[in-house]
Structures are given as structure tokens and as C-alpha cells.
């Protein structure tokens, strides 16, 4: 099997300040990896470098493309990277407003992604949009409503539908359950877990919530001050943390 994503010595600086440094990992098809760390630890910088939103200063990000096999996404052309972002990748933002077009209907938000990869038949697009609204548990009667009329949890589910409709193989998520009520979070977690399993997706999830990674991620990376301090199997990192910072992080969680 070929790894889906191989990251080698990736570093990003903001001036003299280290964003993230010397990150290495290999993600295999079907794996979900969590990245945890406190604010400013570099986890979002890393995610943005992986997803092509930001150019790293050093290192390689090798993605196994459908057509040409493993390619370094850092050195490919901007149009090539954009095409990957529309077809093979998906990016779920913490704030659904950053990932949705707020003035376009729910159906239009989903259909938009399909049209970006060449779909032109109105009936097909609408049918697929309807199917996806159903999968993310949004009432199909609301297909023509705009997302601003939706609750936060519904907006987040719509953003997920918009992202997954084109059948990506790798999903980047930045705090996907942040800002949601806990009851809404639980439903979203269940939905995400079901979709990841059914579609065989791989995902990289950035969060500061250890409960979320325990439920969603197979493996875990812990970051502090731009460095990876520990990585491994999720329950091993959480139950038997080796690094001083990870031990502090795990022992700081409030028990309910």
C-alpha cells in the first residue's frame, strides 16, 4: 500500500518566530490523525501548510494523487494545487461561515462544489445535493433556504456536506466541533465517525479537545511551541503519555 500523505521535515516561520518545525509523519489510507496542543502550538499552521493554504519554508508534503501517484504538493503549480483542493481534499473550517457561501441556498452550496469539478446537469446536481443534505441530517425541505437561516450545528453539517459531495480522499478539519453546544457536538461526532467509516476517508483533525480525538482519531500528534513532542496510537498517547507536556495536558482535563 502507498501512504496517502507523507510529510518530511516540514517547517514554517513567521519572521524569526517558529510556526511549526521539523514535522514528520506518514498517513495511510483510512487513518484519522488528531493534532492537539494549546493555542499557539502551531497546529493550525501545520494544517494550513498540509492543505496548501500556506507555503512551508522547508520540507515536503507528498500526496498520493489519483492520476500521477505521489507528488510533492509544495512544489506543484498553484492551479494543480487548487484542483486537488476541489477534488481530492476537503477542508472543514471551525467557523462554518468561512467554508460556506452565506448568500447562496443550502442546495447551491453543495451544488457549487460539484460544478467546480465540471458537473453541469441541473437535475443531477440537485439530486446529489438532496442526497447529501439527507446524509448530514438536514431536512430536504430546507434545500432552498440560505445557511444564515440555519443553526450553528446545521451550518456545520452543511459545510461537511459541501466538502464531501465531490468524494475527497483526505479531509482536513480545524476544530470541527468548536463553538457548538455539547449536545450538538455529540451528534456531529457520530455523523463524522459514520462518514469516515462508510466512505473510507482519511482525515487530519486539529482540536484542543482530547475527548474528541479519543472518539475520532486512530492516532495522535501532540504539539507544543511549534514542535511535535509526542505521537502515536491515540489511546497510548492519552493513557500512557511519555512526554512531560503530554502528561500535563492529559492530567489537566476536568473529569465530569
Amino acid at each position, binding site marked *: 500500500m502507498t501512504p496517502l500523505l507523507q510529510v518530511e521535515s516540514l517547517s514554517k516561520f513567521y519572521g524569526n518566530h517558529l510556526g511549526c518545525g521539523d514535522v514528520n509523519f506518514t498517513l495511510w489510507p483510512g487513518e484519522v490523525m488528531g493534532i492537539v496542543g494549546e493555542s499557539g502550538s502551531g497546529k493550525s499552521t501545520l494544517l494550513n501548510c498540509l492543505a496548501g493554504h500556506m507555503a512551508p519554508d522547508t520540507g515536503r508534503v507528498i500526496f498520493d494523487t489519483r492520476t500521477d501517484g505521489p507528488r510533492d504538493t509544495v512544489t506543484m503549480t498553484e492551479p494543480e494545487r487548487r484542483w486537488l483542493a476541489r477534488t481530492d481534499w476537503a477542508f472543514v473550517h471551525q467557523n462554518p461561515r468561512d467554508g460556506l457561501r452565506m448568500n447562496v441556498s443550502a442546495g447551491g452550496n453543495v451544488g457549487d462544489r460539484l460544478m467546480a469539478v465540471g458537473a453541469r446537469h441541473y437535475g443531477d446536481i440537485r439530486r446529489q445535493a438532496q442526497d447529501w443534505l439527507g446524509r448530514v441530517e438536514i431536512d430536504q425541505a430546507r434545500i432552498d433556504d440560505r445557511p444564515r437561516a440555519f443553526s450553528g450545528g446545521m451550518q456545520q453539517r452543511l459545510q461537511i456536506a459541501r466538502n464531501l459531495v465531490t468524494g475527497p480522499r483526505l479531509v482536513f478539519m480545524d476544530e470541527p466541533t468548536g463553538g457548538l453546544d455539547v449536545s450538538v457536538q455529540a451528534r456531529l461526532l457520530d455523523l463524522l465517525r459514520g462518514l469516515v467509516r462508510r466512505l473510507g476517508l482519511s482525515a487530519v483533525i486539529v482540536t484542543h479537545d482530547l475527548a474528541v480525538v479519543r472518539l475520532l482519531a486512530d492516532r495522535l500528534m501532540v504539539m507544543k511551541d511549534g514542535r511535535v513532542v509526542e505521537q502515536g496510537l491515540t489511546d*497510548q498517547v492519552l493513557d500512557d503519555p511519555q512526554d512531560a507536556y503530554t502528561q500535563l495536558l492529559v492530567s489537566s482535563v476536568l473529569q465530569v
Partner: protein
Amino acid sequence: MIEISGVAKRFVLHNQGGVVLPVMEGAALSVQAGECVALVGASGAGKSTLMRMIWGNYRCDEGSIRVAGVELRDAEPRAVIALRRSKLGYVSQFLRVIPRVPTLDVVAEPLLAQGMDEAQAQARARAMLARLNIPERLWSLSPTTFSGGEQQRVNIARGFIQDWPVMLLDEPTASLDAGNRAVVLDLIREAKARGAAILGIFHDAEARAAVCDREVDVTGFTPARNAA
């Protein structure tokens, strides 16, 4: 199916002055297919630690732990994930689930993860829940609100839904009434009969006598206290 030799484990508490706690040394045991072995020893002697090292959520510092031919010491996450998906089952004492997910889906999940279709997986989950006397009206509810005994039975249903070649059981009969205890002991006998290798912790001496072929006392693996 389980081969352990020369296993040592210590905890280093970085945030408590770097205290080093050696908790195990020289652990060795083996469990063959079709055999059920009980771990015994006083509370704190390391039974659960050893179980967790075999499950892979505790790291093995020294020695070797092989499960169904896979070496767990320094194993890549994906090797452990693959092992847990198809070969190694674990019935823990506590159920950890996403809130609001129905019991039926919680039990069917290991089968779905293996790629079985939903209808078939749910049919098997229904049969297993019925066998463990979980009333049908509870199947569509989340187990988070269930009583301790009901949660334990959901956990057992989830653990035994798949024919794992290797199983770890942590107090499978704790908090069960006599009728359900008998069902669980039957499930263990059936698993042995189809060739599963089982390692378990049973505080219930009668249950242990009923299904276990031999005992391994972990007290022999506990480092001398004065060394700590």
C-alpha cells in the same frame, strides 16, 4: 496466540519531580488457541497494567509481546489498529461511547468497521443483545443512561459480537446477576470452542473455576518495592 517474555514497564512522572515507578519486570506468559488463562494477584500487582500492554494502550518498555504473530513493542500505530480491527478483542470494565448513539449501533460497530453491511451487522447485534437480556425497548437508546449492569452487558455484547481469535476480558462477570453471568460464561466457552485464545481478570472465583484452564500469578512480575 499471546506470547510474552521479559516484559518490563515503568512510569516516569515528569510533573511530579520525575519520579520513576517500576511497575513490572520479567513478565512472561503464553496463551494458546482454545485456552482461557486467568491473571491473578492482589490489587495493584499489575494485572490491569499487563492487560493494557497487550491491548497496546500502555507502552512496553522492555521484552516482547506478540499477539497473533504481531510484535507490539515499538509497533507502528497502523499495525496495532489492524490487529484490533481483525484479531484482538477487548471487553473493558467501562463502556466509552459517543453520547446519543443508540445501543444497537454501539454493539454493531466493530462489525461495520470490518466492512460487514449494515443490515447483517444490526441483525447480529440484535441477537447478541437479546441473548444478554437487554430489553428491546432500550436498543434505540444510548447506553450512557443505563444502569451499571446494563452497561456492562452492552460492553460484553460489543466485545463478543465478532469472532476474535484473541480476547482480553477485564472482569466480564462483575456486576451481573446469576442469569446473565451464566450467559457470559457460555459465551466464553463458545469462544474457546471455536479456538479463541482468552486472557482475563476474574475476581469472581467461581467464574474463574468454570471457564479458566489455568492461572498466572502476576505477583511474580512485580518489582521488589524497596527498589522503587
